[in-house]
Structures are given as structure tokens and as C-alpha cells.
């Protein structure tokens, strides 16, 4: 789950970078940047979740 979180974070950033390079400033670029942020939020969720799960197991 931890690895998935990190991969989601990197994937979100990659979406933003690709959108910057491929799209002109437009509503499509805004949509892709927001999509990148959403993917990063999923990554953060996985990272926090894996940390919580680890703590539950060590209790």
C-alpha cells in the first residue's frame, strides 16, 4: 500500500508535467492539472492508510 501511495504521487505529478508540455493554457490544461492533484490525493490517502495500518498491527 505504501508503494502504491508513492506511485500514485509520482503518477499525479507526471500527469501535470505531461499536460504542461502537451496542452496550451486552456480549460483542458486546468482539467489535467486538477486531475493530477486528484491522483496525488489518492496517493496521500494510501500513504496515510498504510501508516495507520502499520500502527494497528504493532499495537
Amino acid at each position: 500500500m505504501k508503494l502504491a501511495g508513492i506511485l500514485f504521487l509520482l503518477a499525479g505529478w507526471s500527469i501535470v508535467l505531461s499536460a504542461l508540455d502537451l496542452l496550451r493554457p486552456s480549460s483542458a490544461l486546468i482539467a489535467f492539472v486538477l486531475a493530477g492533484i486528484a491522483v496525488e490525493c489518492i496517493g496521500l490517502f494510501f500513504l496515510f492508510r498504510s501508516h495507520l495500518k502499520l500502527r494497528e498491527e504493532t499495537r
Partner: protein
Amino acid sequence: MIPGPASAFSETPAGAICLVSILLVPLAMAGLALISCGLGRSRSAAHVMLASLCAVAVASIVYVVCGFSWDGFAGGPAHVWLLRGKSWNWIAAQPFFLRGLELDGSPASLGALLQMFGAGLAAIIPLSATMDRWRLSAICASTALLAGCTYPIFAHWVWGGGWLAQLGDNYGLGRGFLDSGGAATVQVVGGLTALSMTWILGARRDKYSEEGMPTAIPGHSPVFVVFGCFLTWVGWLGLNSSGAILFSHILPGRIVLIAVNTTLSAAAAGLMALVITRVRFGRPDASITANGWVGGLVAGSAAPAFMNPAAALIVGFIAGIVVTFAVDWFEMWLEVDDPGGAVPVHALAGIWGLLAAGLLIRFPDQNAARGQWLAQLVGITTLLGFVLPLTYSLNWLLNRVYPQRVEPDGERQGMDLHELGAGAYPEFVVHTDEFIQR
């Protein structure tokens, strides 16, 4: 040698004011160290202060040895990729040990000095999240990774003429990613490293019950905490002023606006935290108020030269709300044991400040601000999508080869006795359990 009118700049009012402002920045480090010390237990007080000093020392040395080589300065040698006709400046290509850089007051040399202090400031931030359980030698090793890798790479992108700074020229996004006072480069980078370290080290012994309920472990000296706030204020005035002159090229007269905005942002955040704790708990809480104050300084440092005072107040008020609730939220629901509140104060408030800069800044030419908020969002996604994985991975690997957490016995004894051999307050027996074998 780096070309440019070095002596000419140092003899201008902007150069002189910039130099004086940079020399105030170590006060911010002293302030953060005092705040961390005051928010921690008395049995680890000396350890926190010594660790802060060691972190600054290691960060300064590593930054000079190799950090500046990747960081560089705008217009300096760098590795640039051309993608679809646009240049992407990824990393500087300076020699090690600052070779080739005349330390004579040129903008490049002042930038190197400010960033050496910036690396030290970023290195202190994780210490307040990891008190009572992070070994001194491991702190030094982790700081070397921060100052030699994570910090300079991101700083180059923002302050060294890298691709984030070029978003305006290349893609028409405002003036590119704006962060004149280091809200991202110093604060969020430090805050995300703090988050990584809390995950890697785990919570303090006895912090959470079997059911996962947090135990209150109050700080030992509110006096240190509040005095630290005064010091950070002065240090931040220097940081924001020098950063704006060097990286946003403002005229020296605008330092008045920067000082007003920096103060207003901190004041609003501190007061908001005080009011919220007064309403929630019946009494104002000194530690949360101090966290709010520093959170306001952090949030206000993204673009203090381009906001009017009313906008700085809004930034501060919201930073105060974010920090106050996030401290509880991280402790209660996410089980992140962060005694100094480093993650909410530096990472969350910093991200809010960067976002607010995109929404609330006013340039003389408003057309230049078009797309600025998008540039700020790209910067924030880079912090979350690149800096967090990088700093987490580096410290995770370090932990595999060199365990970072102190032994259980050391944690029970306190870091002062275990690592330094003596307590910070030898005349007073503050906690009897420090000396009783369980």
C-alpha cells in the same frame, strides 16, 4: 568566474539591504530551535537544541560541498532539456565547493549565502516532529541527504531559474511559480521531510493507548516557545526581504510592504489560533498560538511583496484556522505523532500560502498575473508528487542501512541522559520516572 557587476550590486542600496536581511535569517533558525525545545519534554531539551545546531552545521557544510552544485543560480550553468521547443532547466551544473563563485556581494553569491541558511532552516523543521526518538547521528545523516539532494534540486527549480520559475516565460502561466520567501523551497520541503520522518520513526512510546487514543504530552517551557516566536519573526523579516530582492527583483522600498505583510500574516494567524483555543478549551493555549504564529509567517512568505495588507490578513487568518485544526487532526485521526506541529505549521500552512499567492497577488501589470494560480498549483503538485516521494524514499533507505530510532531504553531514559550523558536541567528533578527503572 561568474560574470556580472558584482561589486556594483553590493554597493547599491538593494545589495546592502539584501545582505543585512540575509544576516537576520539565522535568528529564524534560533527561534525554531527554541520553539521545538519548549514544545518537547524537559528530558530531551538539550538534545533538541544540540540536534538543531548539528543540523545547521551539517546542512551548511553539505550545501557548500555539493548542494550549491545542483542548486546554482538563475542564468548560471545548468542541464537543460529541449522539449517541443521549450527549454526545461532541470538541475544546475556548478563545480563543487562553490568553486568559480566570487563571494563578493554579487547577486549569485548573496543567493548562495541565503540558500545555505535556507538549507539549515529546512533541516531544523523535521526535528520538532521527531523529538524524543531520533538519534543525533541519524539526524546528521538525514540532514546531509536533505541539504545535498532534496533541497537543492527543488530550490534550483524555483530560485535557480529552473523549470518552475520558467513556467511564465515558457507556458504563459503568470510570472512562473512564485515563492520569494521560501514557503515552498524551505518550509514545505522541511515539512514534508518531517512527515516522512514521523512515518519512518513511528510514534513516541506511550503516545497512543492500545485503542489508538493519543495521550497529551505537554511541552516543558512555554517561555521558550513564545520567545522563539519573537526570534522567528525577526528572522522571517530578513528571509522575506532578501528573497524578494534576490528572486523577485523588487525595489528596496517595497521592503516596508513586506515587513507589514509578514507581521500582519503572523499576527492574524496567531490571534486566530488563540481565539479558537479559547473558544474550544476555555483558555488560550500558548503552544497552539505559537504554532499559529509560525504558520502565519510560513503562509505569508510565498509572495509578501505582491499582496496588499488586507490580503496578508486573510492569508494569516486562514493559516491560523488550518494550523489549529490540523494539529488535532493529525494527532487524533492520522496518528502522526508530531509534538512540535511541524507538518501542519510548515507543510500545510506553506501549501495554503502558495495557493493564496496565486489567488490574491496584485502585480502592477495585471496581465502578468494571468495563469499565476495555475503556476502555483503546478508547484504544489511538484512538492507532493516529487519532493515527498524523494524525501520519504531517501530516508527510508537510510533507515534500512542505519536505523534512525533510538533504542527503547533510551526513549524511556530521555534523549539527554541517553545520548548526551546529562540532563538539560541537572539541578531539578522534573520527572521522577526518568530515573526509576521500570
